[in-house]
């Protein structure tokens, strides 16, 4: 069995929780282990969504965010698309564990995505796309 899901939401952080719930439920359908459906997926997806809304679309109030989910028994691929100009992932990624960063309020989003997912790709395709892959870890 194979499920592909596409969602489109207005660029508004209040949609994040609902999208996360829908996606996590979809993965629960494939009985992904609990820590993946309750930690890795929700947190990594929230980060990608809030970056897409606040950083990518930013002040473009009529913009949308698209989420594409592709799940099989073995792996989950999440794509988050915004209408922004994109960014350099490597350059923007910081290590929040460094003493100088530890007490900063921001800058943990991309780091958590890399920690919680097996692979992150960023590319442009009529907008900015962040693609995250998670293998099933039992």
């Amino acid at each position: 069995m194979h499920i592909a899901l596409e969602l489109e939401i207005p660029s508004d952080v209040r949609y994040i929780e609902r999208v996360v719930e829908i996606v996590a439920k979809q993965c629960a359908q494939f009985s992904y282990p609990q820590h993946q459906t309750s930690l890795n997926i929700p947190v990594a997806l929230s980060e990608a969504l809030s970056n897409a809304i606040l950083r990518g679309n930013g002040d473009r109030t009529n913009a949308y965010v698209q989420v594409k989910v592709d799940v099989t028994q073995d792996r989950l691929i999440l794509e988050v698309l915004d209408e922004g100009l994109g960014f350099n992932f490597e350059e923007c990624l910081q290590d929040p564990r460094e003493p100088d960063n530890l007490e900063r309020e921001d800058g943990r989003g991309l780091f958590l995505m890399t920690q919680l997912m097996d692979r992150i790709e960023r590319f442009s395709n009529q907008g900015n796309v962040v693609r995250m892959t998670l293998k099933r870890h039992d």
Partner: protein
Amino acid sequence: MSFAIKKQGEIVVVDVEGQLIVGNRQELKQRVLDELEKGERKFLVDFSQTGYIDSSGLGVLVSLSKKIREQGGELRLANLNDDLKTLFELTKLDTLFQISDTRERALETF
């Protein structure tokens, strides 16, 4: 998601019900800062009813902790489930906060 704030002894206890994420962290921040303003100095955030926390939720805890320390107070945490513990460990925030396994323990040792 909602926040229940109550006072136990001289400690302000905040229960985070549901998610602590970009959509609601501002509310938590404001409510704790209001108590700080009123003169409260000891704060305990209890996560027994919490789902997931994103980086902006973590960020709010860090910045509240700093502001409270600047006033001579302290912010402690209790009842992190395994997922939340992992999150604090990944970001090394477990080294920044005093974290208790239970609410009772946190209240006793404050």
